[in-house]
């Protein structure tokens, strides 16, 4: 399935109170066709989206879905180790693998040359799920909605997609400041509630990492 279709279907499966972070200009433009208030687009800071999404997840009770390509995943590998050790239960990484840098004319990435992508992800401490079969053939929205609705992080979802982007999509028409303001309002809006049934992270995590005395 093409990236545009996968993004559309996945966005359809998100709950109203989920945050979705899209990385890169092409991802953002295609996702913007199915824009919602919880969507945030990182247009031109390659590599930033993963740590940004983790920072959001750690400070909010809403689930944060991070959408990245295989090229971007490799670019800031450390961020995913950070996501794994955070044990943050409300962060879900969706890696769309087309085995190339689409925005750079389709030159290949090393993603599929790794011994085992799932193994690398697993050894960092993330649960790895392969959702490729769900996006092949006829898409079952209700089944997928149920699956996505029950997701608890930290987890990485791998989806193999076809090469190519959708040339018919427009630009993100909101300014960067408007995007930030909209997201802040969305996260602060408590009336939306949360899809999380457990606290987003364990408080023990912080105790382990601060070795100082008491103030």
């Amino acid at each position, binding site marked *: 399935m093409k990236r545009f279709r996968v993004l559309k279907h996945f966005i359809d499966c998100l709950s109203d109170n989920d945050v979705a972070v899209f990385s890169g200009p092409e991802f953002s433009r295609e996702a913007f066709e199915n824009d919602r208030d919880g969507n945030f687009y990182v247009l*031109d*800071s390659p590599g930033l989206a993963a740590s*940004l999404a983790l920072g959001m997840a750690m400070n909010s009770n809403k689930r944060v879905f991070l959408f990245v390509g295989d090229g971007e995943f490799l670019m800031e590998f*450390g961020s995913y180790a950070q996501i794994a050790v955070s044990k943050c239960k409300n962060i879900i990484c969706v890696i769309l693998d087309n085995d190339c840098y689409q925005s750079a004319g389709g030159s290949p990435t090393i993603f599929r040359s790794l011994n085992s992508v799932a193994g690398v992800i697993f050894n960092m401490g993330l649960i790895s799920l392969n959702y490729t079969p769900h996006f092949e053939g006829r898409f079952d929205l209700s089944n997928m909605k149920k699956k996505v609705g029950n997701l608890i992080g930290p987890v990485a979802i791998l989806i193999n997609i076809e090469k190519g982007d959708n040339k018919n999509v427009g630009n993100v028409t909101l300014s960067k400041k408007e995007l930030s303001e909209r997201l802040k309002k969305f996260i602060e809006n408590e009336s939306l509630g949360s899809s999380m049934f457990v606290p987003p992270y364990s408080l023990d995590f912080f105790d382990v990492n601060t070795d100082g005395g*008491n103030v």
Partner: protein
Amino acid sequence: MKAQDFWKFLCEEMGYRFFAGVPCMGFKTLYGSMSPRFMHYIPAVRENIALGLANGSYLAGTKSAVIMNLDRLYNLLDWLTSFNCEHSVPVLILAYRDSYDEKMISALASYGIPHKVLVSVEKDIKSLLKKMDKLGLPGIAIIEEGVLE
């Protein structure tokens, strides 16, 4: 100023709660006096990841800061200019300066990023934060040896 008083000032008075950073020798005392009772500190694997965490925290409504060495700020200039300045995400960066290389200071000035070498800590931080809020830009509080003990 004592490091413990600095945290009290920054967390209780200024409302900062979330910190991420990469340890630096000069901030040994600062790290030693952190308290999980009123702050969350995340050790990041690189300075740019610390900045990403702080940015995410700010967008989720929690005031956040990055702790790092000033020399490593070159790694952040890309994201500071392409994300923080354009999205108006005013995170605070506490940077330890152990060398007197003026190049970084002039780089910050040319990018228009607010910065201040702390002398009178409370007063200087307050004026830096005021400027950051007004401009919607990130700010660098430069801390030299002996300022926090």
